[in-house]
């Protein structure tokens, strides 16, 4: 059984702009999934559905086979298990310092102060930013903000972590460091789902890939095979990785 799944997911933005069209998707535990496609293909909209930020126009989301509950308590339980990191870290960081910001999620889980503090320290260490704990969030570099935002999500120890363009805007070395950190998270039991435009990175890093175009999935399969297939990639408006 898949950990998280979308069934016939369709979403139309207010104003009638279609974003997702009958998406069927299964996310397997422990399999890194890359979601690729051109700008406006619906990748971010999909992630926002997978943690309950957006509610589908039709279709449903299943968490371990059970349809998700859209009540406040249901959403809360869902988001404990499915974390989300937005593309722009400034959309996520709101507290004065990194430590305070990362503590926000654990406190929302109802953890006590000592346990929340331990979670924050663990997350900051995992992301390699323990030395930035007391730094003001608006004084961080772009890469540091990304790491702080991810720390804020993993401090809640989600089973699935959804990342919207995690390496966008990072230099090559920072991107490599971030991916290595994500691998360590995965080793501790977090399933990774990420959107990206970086086909080469997805080819190296992901186990599986789905290709989006115009709100539809045009292909899916193992990343090592799918992303080198020029014909299939062309259908999604992407360039294949050189074999």
């Amino acid at each position, binding site marked *: 059984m898949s950990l998280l799944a979308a069934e016939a997911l369709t979403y139309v933005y207010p104003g009638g702009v279609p974003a997702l069209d009958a998406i069927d998707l299964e996310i397997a535990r422990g399999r890194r999934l890359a979601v690729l496609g051109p700008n406006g293909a619906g990748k971010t909209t999909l992630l*926002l559905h997978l*943690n309950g*930020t957006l509610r589908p126009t039709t279709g449903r989301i299943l968490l371990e086979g059970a349809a998700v509950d859209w009540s*406040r308590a249901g*959403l*809360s339980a869902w*988001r*404990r298990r499915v*974390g*989300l*990191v*937005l593309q*722009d870290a*400034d*959309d*996520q960081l*709101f*507290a*004065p*310092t990194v*430590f*305070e*910001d990362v*503590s*926000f*999620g654990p*406190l*929302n*889980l109802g953890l006590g*102060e000592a346990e*929340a*503090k331990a979670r*924050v320290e663990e997350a900051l260490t995992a992301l390699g930013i323990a030395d930035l704990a*007391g*730094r*003001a969030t*608006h*004084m961080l570099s772009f890469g540091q903000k990304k790491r702080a*935002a991810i720390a*804020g*999500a993993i401090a*809640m120890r989600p089973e699935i972590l959804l990342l919207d363009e995690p390496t966008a805007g990072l230099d090559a070395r920072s991107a490599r460091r971030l991916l290595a950190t994500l691998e360590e998270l995965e080793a501790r039991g977090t399933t990774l789902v990420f959107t990206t435009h970086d086909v080469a990175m997805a080819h190296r890093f992901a186990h599986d890939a789905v290709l989006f175009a115009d709100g539809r999935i045009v292909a899916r399969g193992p990343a090592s095979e799918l992303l080198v297939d020029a014909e299939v990639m062309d259908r999604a408006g992407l360039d294949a990785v050189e074999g």
Partner: protein
Amino acid sequence: MTPIDRIAATNRWRDHSITEKALLGLGLLGLALTTPPWPTAVAVLAVATLAVTRGAGVPVRVWVKILAAPLGFVLTGAATLLIELGPHGIGFAADGLPRAAGLTLRATAAVSGLLTLTLTTPATDLVAGLRRWKVPAEIVEIALLTHRFLLLAGDTASAMHTAQTARLGHVDWRRRIRSTGLLAANLLPRTLDRARRLETGLAARGWNGASLAVLTPKRPVSPRRLAAIVATLAALAALGLADADGLLPMLGMLPA
């Protein structure tokens, strides 16, 4: 981000208790306002300068520059004391010079007291301090978010201004007015859009519309520093009282 924000976040006193810094800064401000400007205001200014430059490690050049910024307003106000409207029209006031000098001293000392607090304490710590002083959580959280959004809106406005300048949007006053209007008009929807995305980010971390609680670091009061601050303020107050009682008449060139 303003230079004051940057200094407040990086100075040597950043991690000192807000109680100590508030006592010192607001104490100096109070003394500057309530005691005779000579010699207390000068002493207040000296203490603030030492605290900020030697204590918190703010470069003297930066301190002078920031302290001088409001001086234009102070001098404009003081200048009005130099003249008076008499039976023969406008003329110099008899006691105008000492009164203007006294006002300038008092105002500068008061500003230095306030700056002692604001240059050593990030605005967010000040707002978080309100929580401890039992200000309702809703007000504190709105203030925190407002501060965060001001910084983000400032960054956005700065980037938009740069982009406009690069496309000759500020070459003359006519275009400057038009570009500034466009910038202001576009800043609001962008800020609202960012607010919506921030809400998404918060919801993803389990926020359900209730409190924006975070773990605030504990910065215990140092008894040694607290004693030093109280002693300094007491000494300044004694100096002010001595002067008010006329015990320093030889220094009474500048009346209160």
